[in-house]
């Protein structure tokens, strides 16, 4: 196998693994930039993966053909927004501990998705295998460039969407009035309040965008990787996305880089087995790698200073 092909494929696999993380990490950024900690990314991803599987299944049934997975994506967004309201109501309106509220989401998602899968599919713990899922699309011309052609331009539509969204998110957060307000609310809510900005409304919006994006991330797992939803479809990606967000210093571009890094460490895990020297490394250590790297990276390059100043604090106008 020549190294050009391998490199291209490694890059490609990296992006495949990164896609869900990018969506979810971007989601985390919108919530946390508004000052609401979001430990529920994992749960939102589950809801999204579940909604995508079920909606795509019924869309297939209705004969919608290749439009079916797109219906799945929309369903994921809708369910992500709806369930994000649980987190928003608890942590914004009722000033609940935001970390706990996020854990509630994870609990509810783990229970509710499987409960409804069993309810809908006659007691089966898994949705039927989808036939209409996303396929890799080669972008004409660009995909014939060596290495990056295979690496970047021969990928799932969802991956392209994720990368475009990174730049959209950056633009929205840093170049528009909406972004200025969202960040103000996360840094100094009472300053925003006295400037006539409705703090809680901005935070609701941040959390809802967060739910939508994380759910999209979950949906991409169903619609590109597993083609089905089961209890282990989402197992820890939401937490990795949180790490990517922190590692990326709450900046979409940074989070993209971090997500790609985690994607790479997962991709390496599949590619390393191709080499004979890897036989001596127990597979468990290769599995451990991304998590170990996360800790090392956090220890080496940490700084909570990049976090929004009012992160995790409910806004109480009476307190000055």
């Amino acid at each position: 196998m020549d190294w050009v092909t391998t490199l291209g494929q490694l890059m490609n696999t990296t992006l495949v693994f990164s896609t869900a993380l990018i969506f979810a990490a971007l989601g985390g950024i919108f919530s946390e930039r508004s000052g609401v900690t979001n430990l529920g990314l994992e749960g939102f991803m589950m809801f999204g993966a579940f909604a995508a599987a079920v909606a795509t299944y019924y869309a297939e049934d209705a004969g919608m053909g290749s439009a079916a997975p797109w219906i799945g994506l929309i369903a994921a967004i809708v369910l992500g927004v709806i369930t994000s309201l649980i987190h928003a109501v608890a942590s914004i309106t009722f000033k609940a501990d935001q970390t706990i509220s996020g854990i509630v989401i994870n609990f509810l998602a783990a229970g509710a998705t499987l409960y409804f899968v069993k309810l809908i599919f006659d007691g089966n713990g898994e949705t039927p295998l989808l036939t209409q899922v996303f396929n890799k699309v080669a972008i004409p011309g660009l995909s014939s460039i060596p290495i990056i052609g295979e690496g970047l331009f021969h990928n799932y539509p969802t991956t392209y969407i994720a990368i475009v969204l990174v730049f959209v998110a950056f633009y929205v957060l840093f170049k528009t009035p909406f972004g200025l307000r969202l960040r103000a609310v996360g840094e100094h809510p009472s300053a925003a309040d006295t400037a006539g900005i409705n703090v809680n409304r901005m935070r609701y919006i941040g959390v809802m965008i967060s739910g939508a994006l994380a759910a999209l991330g979950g949906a991409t797992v169903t619609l590109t990787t597993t083609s089905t939803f089961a209890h282990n479809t989402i197992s820890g990606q939401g937490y990795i996305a949180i790490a990517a967000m922190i590692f990326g210093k709450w900046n979409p571009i940074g989070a993209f880089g971090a997500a790609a890094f985690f994607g790479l460490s997962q991709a390496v895990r599949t590619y390393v087995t191709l080499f004979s020297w890897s036989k001596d490394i127990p597979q468990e250590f290769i599995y451990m790698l991304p998590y170990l790297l996360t800790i090392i990276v956090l220890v080496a390059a940490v700084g909570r200073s990049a976090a929004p100043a009012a992160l995790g604090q409910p806004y109480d106008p009476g307190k000055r």
Partner: protein
Amino acid sequence: MNSATPVVELKGITKRFPGVVANDSISFKLFKGEIHALLGENGAGKSTLMNIVFGLYQPDEGSIEINGEPVIIDNPNKAIDLGIGMVHQHFKLVEPFTVTENIILGMEPKKGSNLDTKTAAARIQELSEQYGLRVDPYAKIHDISVGMQQRVEILKTLYRGADILIFDEPTAVLTPQEITELMEIMRRLVAEGKSIILITHKLKEIMHISNTVTIIRRGKVIDTVKTSEASPSILAEKMVGRNVTFKVDKRAAAPGGNVLEVRDLFVKNKEGATVLNGLNLNVRAGEILGIAGVDGNGQTQLIEALTGLSKVESGSIRLNGKELANATPRQISESGIAHIPEDRHKHGLVLDFSMSENMVLETYYKEPYSKRGFLDYNAIKKQAQRLIQAFDVRTPSAETKARSLSGGNQQKAIIAREIDKNPDVLIAAQPTRGLDVGAIEFVQTQLIAQRDQGKAVLLISFELDEIINVSDRIAVIYEGQIVGEVLPEQTNDQELGLMMAGSTVAGGVRHE
């Protein structure tokens, strides 16, 4: 509208919080082009009243009229629409944002869907020239001086087209020179047709700048008078409800030898910048050394280094000859330094602990409070009750959580605890901040009593009056160094103000 119609009229405003009536049927009129001072002690209800005008709180009773029209102001947006702007005591500025971003926040000009910062900066430039408010539109808030931050706050209100400006304790953080500049700005604003409400507890400023004064005490309006017909002593009496002199009763100091000696102290802040640049000072037994200076010149780091909360890069701190640089807070405390912290909620108390537990916060591990690793709650309670009684801390019981006490009583509790340690050096950082006159007198009397018992007292305060009245000797801190020393009876605001701004030309002695 004729000229006799007030621009703001409050009629019978009442606001209750659980357990207190913050505003009790307050009526108030502001006329166009005047500076109307609202005078009252900390906790008298001034800020509550102004937060009602600005739409942050809703009154329980009463009504508000703007230019003769009855209005309901249920959020800050409404207030802004009505032309009301507020310059908050604690600036409402987003630190990582630029000056421009802060000013336009909530009213952003757009170009397409983009923020149009260029147009905004031009408009800000225009306003800043019109009113003489120098700012750098592209600087970040955390890089500019407190004075400039305040000008940004003022510009925020002007940018929103405010005609009625509320200044909440605007001079609390300024040097005397900056105060003079602020007064100029206020005059200019009034000349341009604005009307101003000035909230303050400082009589000097009121006499200096206001046209009318309304005095509030315990939530009630006591009187409204023309400034020209008032005198500081009359105003003070109305504000406090009894005759006060604001002069502290004390005998001349009889200082002994050096107890605390600080030599060539270098300390960095959390961002890694050097904030103490070879600071030197001595405190003698039986004297109060006051440290005057503008906030942010190294006072916090000085206190933290002295108490072991910050790392000392180099230099020495000697207590009775014993080296304490980089000792732990506990070693320092046991060596005989007590510390009344600047921020009683952050450092002084564990708010969710009972008063008992707070009273032994530094001594819990010693006998009799702790025996073989177990706490003796009876002994702890006994100690707490003794201190509560001796220092007249008003609390329902020793088991009450610190959180539910008033600021003055929390401060009394901390002072009781620190003095009871019988220290050689007592460090008091901003010990009267936010307290009413009664509590202030109590605190200052305690400091002087400690001095009279031969303790060395180090007082750090941003209130120049307090420094001048309480200290026996004043050292001025500027950019991490003591730039001069003066005696309180031989100096005045102007001289201290110049030294605080870094000038050494005044009569002060350069401390080498």
